[in-house]
């Protein structure tokens, strides 16, 4: 595959087993550049496992993953990050004793002071760099309504605020491809919509997105394409409206009929 791959990410027949449990059973998907792809499916169907495998947090047992045309199967998460993928955890993993601001600054790329020699001998340079990074961090925090908490320890935030910080931190890292695991879980519906609107703004900056999301109204509004996962396999894909209208989707998702219970397809 060449560098001008129209797909920023290709996942091919990925299998991930945990002992005897097959969490991902041969999943394939493509993410075109500058699109938002939603990955939906019932709890425990393997969505998080697939995302972690893509990011290199765990090794696939079979299959391959290509980012911008190059295989990233063997890379460690920090190397995957260096290529341009950023992953926001389903359950926020913040640096709890560190301030909200420090959590943001950690995510900034290319700081000369990140290296041992640079931290001692390029002090002037990294101080300049940190000024720019600080500006970006405060702007992002402002957008996410976290300004007030800038100097608070991240561990003191509420559940919803932690989720917001997890996403802000990911955005701070300027990903080419952002992997978001249930960004709206645990936050109220109004805020959830706001989060998606904000993410959408960043997508206009050229970012691609793979989002795991349960709330179909958000998927309908923001996703360009939907993959439906069931028992470790991709069983259905299509435009949001097509997927939402599919009887198969209802069958696997809630075991019911279109128009049933709590799924909103307006």
């Amino acid at each position, binding site marked *: 595959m060449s560098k001008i791959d129209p797909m920023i990410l290709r996942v091919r027949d990925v299998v991930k087993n945990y002992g005897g449990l097959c969490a991902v059973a041969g999943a394939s998907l493509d993410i075109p550049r500058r699109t938002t792809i939603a990955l939906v499916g019932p709890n425990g169907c393997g969505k998080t496992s697939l995302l972690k495998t893509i990011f290199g*947090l765990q090794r696939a047992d079979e299959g391959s993953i290509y980012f911008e045309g190059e295989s990233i199967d063997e890379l*460690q998460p920090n190397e995957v990050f260096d290529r341009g993928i950023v992953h926001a955890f389903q359950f926020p993993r913040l640096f709890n004793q*560190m301030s909200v601001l420090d959590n943001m600054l950690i995510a900034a790329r290319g700081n000369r*002071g990140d290296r041992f020699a640079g931290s001692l001998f390029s002090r002037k340079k990294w101080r300049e760099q940190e000024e720019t990074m*600080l500006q970006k961090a405060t702007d992002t925090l402002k957008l996410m309504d976290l300004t007030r908490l800038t100097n608070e320890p991240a561990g003191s935030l509420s559940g919803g605020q932690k989720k917001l910080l997890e996403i802000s931190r990911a955005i701070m890292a300027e990903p080419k491809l952002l992997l978001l695991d249930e960004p709206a879980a645990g936050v109220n519906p109004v805020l959830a919509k706001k989060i998606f609107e904000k993410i959408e703004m960043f997508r206009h900056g050229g970012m691609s997105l793979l989002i795991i999301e349960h709330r179909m109204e958000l998927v309908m509004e923001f996703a360009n394409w939907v993959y439906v996962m069931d028992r470790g396999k991709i069983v259905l894909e299509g435009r949001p409206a097509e997927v939402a209208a599919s009887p198969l989707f209802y069958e696997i998702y809630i075991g019911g009929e279109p128009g049933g219970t709590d799924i909103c397809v307006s």
Partner: protein
Amino acid sequence: MTYGLLMNLLDMVVMIGIYSIAAISLNLEYGFTGLSNFGKVAFFMVGAYTYAILAQAGVNFGVCMVASAVSAAAFGFLVSLPALRLREDYLAIVTLTSGEILRTIIQNQGIGGGYNGISITQIFHFQTLMAIRLANIGLAFAFLGICFIFSQLVANSPYGRIMRAIREDQTAAQSYGKNIQRYKSQVFIMGSAIAGIGGALFAQYSAHIEPGSFLPFLTFTIWMMVMLGGPGNNLGVILGAAVVQIFQKSAAILKDYVHLPVDPINVQYILFGILIILVLFYRPSGLLKESPVKPPKLKEPVNV
């Protein structure tokens, strides 16, 4: 104040300087980066023996000091290779045993005088003990100053922020592009080098070292200094070193001056236990709290 008491006090101050260096070294590893090194005494010992053997061979003081730091750093690098790849609790075990193994080897292979140890000519040749002790205070605190400034510069930089991030959640740090293996290895090397400097000063001051000078209790003492003073705070761990040292030495001094029905050394252990329990209960973050990485100045103030 009697002359003897004064000499004891000066001795205590020298040892506070030397222990503070060891505490700063452990603080880089444990306080900032969360690496549980339970073999601190091993790196201290490598520095001490390197100094002693070279000084004995007539090598000049500056070279001896550099060599002590470098050899301890090299030993730290070697230990870090297997240890940092293992789970955290294994790091504690590997470091703990490395100290014991090293001590046993020195003792049984006759290195540096084997069981009997090695005597070192001191660098200060003044007429009075007082002048020698004062000079040693100056020497220890000069090196402490260098180690402190170095440690502060590293800890309060973006590099130090990454050290803390690794301590908080290493998977998250790795997910943000940090090569945690490299960072941990570097911190271990830095910490070992500083411990080596402390060990060299200890050898120089003691004028005689032997394997029995480097028992695991020394590691335990350094840990107490860090826990008591405040992990993640360089000033705090110096304060911790002072408190612990005053505690230990005053019991020994007391023994010569007061006649108690019990041995003050034993009383000291009991009081120490109580002190640690009190600190853990009422000030789990140590006497001084961790100071955050100073953020660069904002161009415009944050609207609160």
